[in-house]
């Protein structure tokens, strides 16, 4: 029998419901037995969060993978949550459209999983995150019934925004079964410019990029180690690599590239070069989020103006950042200071603040959880711990 192991908890039997009604039955059964329901999709991020605190079932959503409705001219799509990101991309590509959100391991990762962890990558600077694209959602609640919020139109303020509530909720508020997305036309052209930068120059260079006449969709900083680990070729002979991306109409991209190159002429950077395949750069940097060799992977949100200082203080090694969003990823054999530990050896999960310093609203979040899932059916223990 297929099982899923999460941390050091006993292996969970996998159930793979074929219908939403089956999901409801599984939830009701688990609740009656005082068990937990652990939703899983592509199983790419099972190690995120704290260990399960109850026996139960791993609810595999991957059989719920149908496209429900794709009115391409309305620029929306409704799909079941178990669809893989790659399959979703392929469907949208047929109409020259896309969801401009980077997700690691797209061949395996599901949309539901991406929603649960609010996955994103380099392009978030230009396009935002899933909260800007999810316009409708359905999920199975602790009562075993499917409820929905939002709808299939791009503008809609009827009812509470349960889309926002589910995005990043780590599957603790139900099993997401269906998602409606607002999508975009694929940009006509893209470019990426990468260059090396010294530690001292990094702050001023990021300020320059913030003020650039161009309007990048991605501004990434990677340590030389991170750049190599992402298999993006030999890094420049400098501790930091900066990669800047443009996606737009061809004429607009060309102008931005030229403009940036001009702006960089007087800047303390070296080895400025075009990346031959810009999409590959963003995908490779996104994939670092799941790098198998890293014992610890940390993710911190800091003021963008402090990114260079934060990186300078981080231990040398494998770090990278969505620099103008202030999102810093660090990898190593020891935990980074601050932020969330997206990966942490299970023995250390008992000692370290896996979810970082609790935010000011932590008590209110816990109260929302206990109000909406009083018997703690969904992913018990993994977000709020202990319970």
């Amino acid at each position, binding site marked *: 029998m297929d099982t899923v192991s999460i941390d050091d908890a006993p292996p969970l039997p996998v159930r793979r419901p074929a219908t939403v009604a089956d999901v409801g039955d599984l939830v009701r059964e688990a609740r009656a037995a005082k068990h937990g329901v652990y939703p899983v999709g592509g199983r790419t991020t099972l190690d995120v969060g704290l260990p399960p605190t109850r026996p139960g079932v791993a609810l595999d959503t991957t059989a719920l993978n149908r496209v429900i409705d794709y009115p391409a001219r309305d620029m929306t799509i409704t799909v079941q949550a178990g669809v893989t990101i790659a399959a979703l991309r392929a469907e949208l590509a047929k109409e020259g459209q896309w969801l401009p959100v980077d997700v690691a391991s797209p061949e395996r990762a599901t949309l539901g999983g991406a929603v649960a962890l609010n996955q994103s990558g380099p392009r978030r600077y230009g396009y935002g995150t899933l909260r800007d694209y999810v316009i409708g959602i359905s999920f199975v609640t602790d009562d075993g019934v*499917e409820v*929905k919020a939002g*709808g299939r*139109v791009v503008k809609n303020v009827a009812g509470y925004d349960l889309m926002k*509530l589910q995005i990043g909720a780590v599957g603790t508020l139900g099993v997401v079964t269906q998602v409606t997305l607002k999508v975009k*036309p694929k940009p006509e052209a893209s470019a990426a410019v990468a260059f090396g930068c010294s530690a001292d120059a990094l702050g001023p260079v990021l300020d320059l990029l913030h003020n650039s006449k161009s309007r990048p969709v991605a501004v990434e900083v990677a340590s030389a180690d991170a750049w190599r680990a992402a298999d993006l070729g030999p890094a420049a002979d400098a501790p930091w690599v900066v990669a800047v991306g443009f996606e737009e109409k061809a004429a607009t991209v060309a102008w931005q590239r030229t403009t940036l190159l001009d702006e960089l002429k007087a800047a303390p950077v070296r080895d400025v070069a075009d990346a031959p395949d810009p999409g590959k750069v963003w995908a490779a940097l996104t994939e670092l989020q799941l790098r198998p060799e890293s014992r610890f992977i940390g993710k911190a949100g800091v003021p963008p*103006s402090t990114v260079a200082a934060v990186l300078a203080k981080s231990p040398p090694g494998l770090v990278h950042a969505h620099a103008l969003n202030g999102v810093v990823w660090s990898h190593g054999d020891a935990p980074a200071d601050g932020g969330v530990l997206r990966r942490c050896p299970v023995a250390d999960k008992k000692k370290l603040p896996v979810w970082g310093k609790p935010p*000011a*609203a932590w008590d209110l979040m816990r109260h929302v959880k206990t*109000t909406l899932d009083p018997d703690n059916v969904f992913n018990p223990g993994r977000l709020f711990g202990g319970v």
Partner: protein
Amino acid sequence: MSTTLTKAAPAAPSAADLVARMRAIVGPDNVLTSAADMAVYECDGFTIAKTKPDVVVFPTSTEHIVDIVKACNELGVGFLARGAGTSLAGGCVLVGGGVMIALARMKRILEVNVRDRYAVVEPGVVNVWLTNALKPHGYHYAPDPSSQGACTIGGNVATNSGGPHTLKYGVTVNHILGVELVLPDGRVVTCGGPTEDGPGYDLTGTVVGSEGTFGVVSKVWVRLTRNPEAYRTLLGVFETIDDATNTISDIIGAGIVPAALELLDKTMLSAVEAAFKFGFPLDAEAVVIMEVDGLAAGLQEEADRIEAIAKKNKAREVRKATTEAERLALWKARKQAFGTIGRLGYPSYCTQDGVVPRTKLPEIMRHIQATAKKYALGICNVFHAGDGNVHPILMFDERYPDQVKRVLDASHEILAECINLGGSVTGEHGIGVEKIDFMPLMFTPDDLHYMVRLRTAFNPDNRCSPGKLLPTAGGCAEPSSSVSQTKPGRRAAV
């Protein structure tokens, strides 16, 4: 599973007690009590539903709000936060009376941080003030409701407001990073903030659009957006509404994401022209304002593509704003269109707010025209066509109950058709008290029950913004004391 809703304390406090408590908190200058003053605060832009508050109080700090909320709880009275009262679905109607917390005097911009792309504002800051303050930096606050000269950021947060430029830039929630919230029990909690990706639930995103039912927002962190380098603003003139809506559909279908696509119909044009003398063609059935923005490089080609699409759809003419002054004059005419409706000779109007998938615009526009004929009503249209967000404006004289009834019935038919076409009954104005009847048409009892459960987590006694957004207890038997059952508006009409 039923939800317990605690009733207000049995012995209602005397009005004098309530006023005395409020004066003690904010000082006598920050309290209004006269009947004339209460009349100002009895409704918002949806003038069909009215309830006078018992007292209006103007806090100037979060501490004031906390004390006001705690006093309301002690005395067992309802309360509601109000910005500028420009909303259009009765969101500012204090159902059951109580304390109106008017946030207009909390109007400071507390911080602008361009490098980290955020600002912190008090809820009473008027939308356009923020954009004006950001001008020297080359940034703006993107959501721009037509009422942006009056409406407040706090009110925008409550209703998740839109505006003409949401087509490209998104609605309010896409630009809100955090809120400080006074919970209905008086606790203060900060959700989100200027840094991204904090752990746990996105309570900020959940609070935005909750129509004041989760608490009183006392501070807001907003995202700043860089100004576009250039604009191209076109005005397509069409002989038929179908030609106009087909143009819109084709522009979107061609993979162009304009900054705005706004349609004005013939009746609307006559009012706007009378007021602004812009030079709109009075014999055209519709005009569409079509704007693209961004970097200058490549923008003209995009405008040319739009012009070609309009011409292919039989546009009689495509005019271009050649100067910034012309562009601003055009937008002034658009944004102040509502204010010109008086020129059409009706004392009152009701602005509807339906949404359809954008490809269904021809159908819904035909339905609106047929409905106007069926109910012998004047209806004009000015709306966010690129989003499929229609705003039929139903004109009437509220002194005649028969007219009010026809307006309500016609509104109902139009909104029901929006649902039928796969859309929604509100794109940006909210459910308020006006559209509660529609919630069971859009959502199942299970959906509504879950929303009531969520509200209970924030607002267990339902004393904060009572009678809004959700049908009473999501189908559970909670008798409604103050708003009539099937058509909230009828209360005022009869």
